């Protein structure tokens, strides 16, 4: 008898060990910066959403092919042009075991509409939301909204009860550096839950066993996000095997990584355009030396535009991995055309002449603000721009700093001249106009204002006739392009580098979805 027990115990131990040994695998993921906050409504920023996306889910979501599909809602219907019904999955539980119901969805949408939310612009057309029954949600819009689903794919659903228990009913006020429970803790319905959070050092995601969906590869049980700011250090960590996946592999090191037998590199055009903004409303530049604001004059803006040799930046700084841009949107977004995306020619003499015509024959001085850990080679691009503008007599002082400070100070209206990148998660031009061009919009830090553009934005929001709507978009693009409201630089190309046996599908919005990750 005794020996029988003994064998049983031995077998149990063997299986336990065998299973953990073969199946428990961690993917160590690195990029230059970290998520700014875990509060899913507090900051509309790439890496922040990338982290939230592993933990939180939305009513609908984009799949690997970037098309919209069901997530928390299984189906939806419109009764009239302003009323939508969403029918929720009934088997969804939060990672603490609570059931997700329509109350949570209603709460989350209202939470994302709070003044401290950075997503309020996404859903500004939603005028009312209510729970019809436990698994049905009714959403009312103030006018017909053709891109509501696109917008909802970025509104993450939180637990009402959890938020109430933890004083997180309103989103963290990120601009005022508020510290909240929800900024360092996350509890969602997604495939992962965060078990350890050390900002800028380490974030550990463990499988959420209560998740309703199924992983592509059940061996993926843990993700660790380990941000490494220095490009060379990040590559060294990858090559030495300390890191499995880098989602912003430095362009200068791609050849080196490819030549390593155990690693691979994938590249894809990213849905992100890099540009420079110039404050056109201030009476006096904060960092200028002329006592007025040269950027008010279109000729000055055009001079700066034409002084930038974008091909040189592409060749030397980006090593060919960028696409020069004429507008702040990219192929695949509704409203993009090749015609609009053409740049004004690079012409130093024309730029000098424009500057002299505008009344600044000797140029002027200004500070350029740059992030140094957000976009591909951001600081190097800015340094190159400093040199190029120096050639037409504009003395630019470069101020590069970490992204969290950069964004915060921009929002605080401290930038005269700054670098920013813009992605379009909704894949519709409206998103760009609504954030960057509308009078008083939250990221319109160049203070551009044009009544015709504002009117066109209203049409984009309410017009269901696609032809009329597209005409409004085309017209708005033409106005802002002719006005040189911003200086577009290029569309980013992103490269992911990983160990050969780690497979995480690359996506044009640079968001990894670890539920589709696998080991081979």
């Amino acid at each position, binding site marked *: 008898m005794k020996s029988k027990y003994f064998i049983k115990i031995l077998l149990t131990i063997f299986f336990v060990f065998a299973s953990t040994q073969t199946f428990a695998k961690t993917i160590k993921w690195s990029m230059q910066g970290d998520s700014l906050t875990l509060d899913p409504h507090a900051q509309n920023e790439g890496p922040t959403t990338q982290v939230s996306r592993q933990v939180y889910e939305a009513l609908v979501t984009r799949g690997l092919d970037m098309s919209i599909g069901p997530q928390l809602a299984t189906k939806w219907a419109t009764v009239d042009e302003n009323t939508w019904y969403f029918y929720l999955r009934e088997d969804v539980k939060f990672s603490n075991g609570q059931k997700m119901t329509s109350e949570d969805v209603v709460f989350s949408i209202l939470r994302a509409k709070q003044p401290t939310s950075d997503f309020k612009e996404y859903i500004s057309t939603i005028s009312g939301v209510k729970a019809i029954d436990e698994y049905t949600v009714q959403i009312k819009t103030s006018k017909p909204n053709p891109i509501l689903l696109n917008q909802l794919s970025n509104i993450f659903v939180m637990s009402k009860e959890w938020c109430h228990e933890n004083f997180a009913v309103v989103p963290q006020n990120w601009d005022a550096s508020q510290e909240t429970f929800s900024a360092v803790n996350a509890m969602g319905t997604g495939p992962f839950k965060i078990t350890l959070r050390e900002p800028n050092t380490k974030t550990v995601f463990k499988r959420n066993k209560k998740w309703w969906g199924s992983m592509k590869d059940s061996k993926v049980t843990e993700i660790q996000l380990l941000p490494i700011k220095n490009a060379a250090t990040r590559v060294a960590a990858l090559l030495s095997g300390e890191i499995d996946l880098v989602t912003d592999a430095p362009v*200068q*090191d791609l050849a080196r990584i490819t030549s390593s037998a155990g690693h691979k590199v994938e590249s894809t055009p990213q849905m992100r355009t890099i540009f420079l903004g110039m404050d056109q409303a201030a009476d006096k530049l904060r960092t200028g030396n002329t006592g007025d604001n040269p950027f008010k004059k279109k000729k000055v803006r055009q001079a700066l535009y034409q002084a930038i040799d974008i091909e*040189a930046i592409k060749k030397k700084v980006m090593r060919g991995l960028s696409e020069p841009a004429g507008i702040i949107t990219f192929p695949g977004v509704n409203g993009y055309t090749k015609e609009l995306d053409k740049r004004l020619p690079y012409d130093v003499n024309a730029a000098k002449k424009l500057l002299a015509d505008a009344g600044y024959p000797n140029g002027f001085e200004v500070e350029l603000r740059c992030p140094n850990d957000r976009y591909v080679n951001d600081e190097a691009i800015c340094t190159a721009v400093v040199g190029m503008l120096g050639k037409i007599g504009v003395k630019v002082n470069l101020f590069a700093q970490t992204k969290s400070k950069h964004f915060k100070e921009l929002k605080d209206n401290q930038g005269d001249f700054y670098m920013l990148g813009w992605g379009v998660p909704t894949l519709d031009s409206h998103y760009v106009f609504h954030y960057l061009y509308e009078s008083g919009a939250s990221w319109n830090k160049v203070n551009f204002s044009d009544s015709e553009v504002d009117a066109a934005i209203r049409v984009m929001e309410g017009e269901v006739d696609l032809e009329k709507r597209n005409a409004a978009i085309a017209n708005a693009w033409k106005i802002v392009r002719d006005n040189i409201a911003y200086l577009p630089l290029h569309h980013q190309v992103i490269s992911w580098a990983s160990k050969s046996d780690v497979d995480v599908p690359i996506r044009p919005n640079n968001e990894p979805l670890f539920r589709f990750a696998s080991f081979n």
Partner: protein
Amino acid sequence: MDNKKLTWFNRVKDSDIYYSFIKSPTAIVSTFILILIFFCSFFVEFVTPYNPFDPSSLSLMDAFTPPSWTEDGLAKFILGTDGQGRDMFATILYGSRISLIVGFSAVIFALVLGVGLGLSAGYFGGKYEMIVMRLTDVQLTVPSILMALLVDGIARGIISRELHDEMAIYVLIFAIGISEWPQFARVSRAATLVEKNKDYVSASTIIGVSNLIIMFKHILPNILRPVLVIGTIGLALAIIAEATLSFLGVGVPPTTPSLGTLIRLGNDFLFSGEWWITFFPAIFLVILAFSINLLGDWMRDTLNPKLN
């Protein structure tokens, strides 16, 4: 009487130091290298036509040109160019000027502070000496790089950002100087303790010479030998400390790079095969520090045989 006829040159020629110098090949070679580096760094405008600190003179298309003797190299860029199209040779010389200025100023700052405190502590003794010496003990427990980082951090906190780039070099001098003064204080105090009991000091005291004059006119020249030895070695340390701080990104701004900043900037391109961007500044720094150290060793042997 005979001495008066000798010119200054002859006096130098007859001295022990000169004799020891020409007998030491290491000293001659390192002095030669140092003079060459000093000359090139301080008259760099005449040595090279490029000015890497003027962004408008650069062309981005020249970036990443390898050294001239390699396949893709260009004759006009002897050591190649960096990621912004700056000529490496010119950038290194401009950078070494900053490194040398920072190094020298920091050592002079540390020397004045350290000798002043050490000499007076040794001379006056008592509670004052105890306080100064315990202060050096406390500071010696803090590694000098940490001390310099601390100073830089505080400076960043109190100086506004617009001013900081201009002030960076002074902050750096202060940071390195403040972390090196205890060495000088200890050596000069020890030497003063020996000197102050000698007859010439007692004689001066008896005839009523004031303390200040005794300290700085009579004792100081006699303790200068060990201080100079420490100073020379301290110069190499200060230059390396500057490079370390700049490498960590808290030194001079990248638009006016010193040697350490150059090494840091080049570090990003090591994996991509653009080795020259970090290699040449690093080699240059090694040669510079090595030469100063060799000269310092020779000076120690000559000026202060007791240390052997």
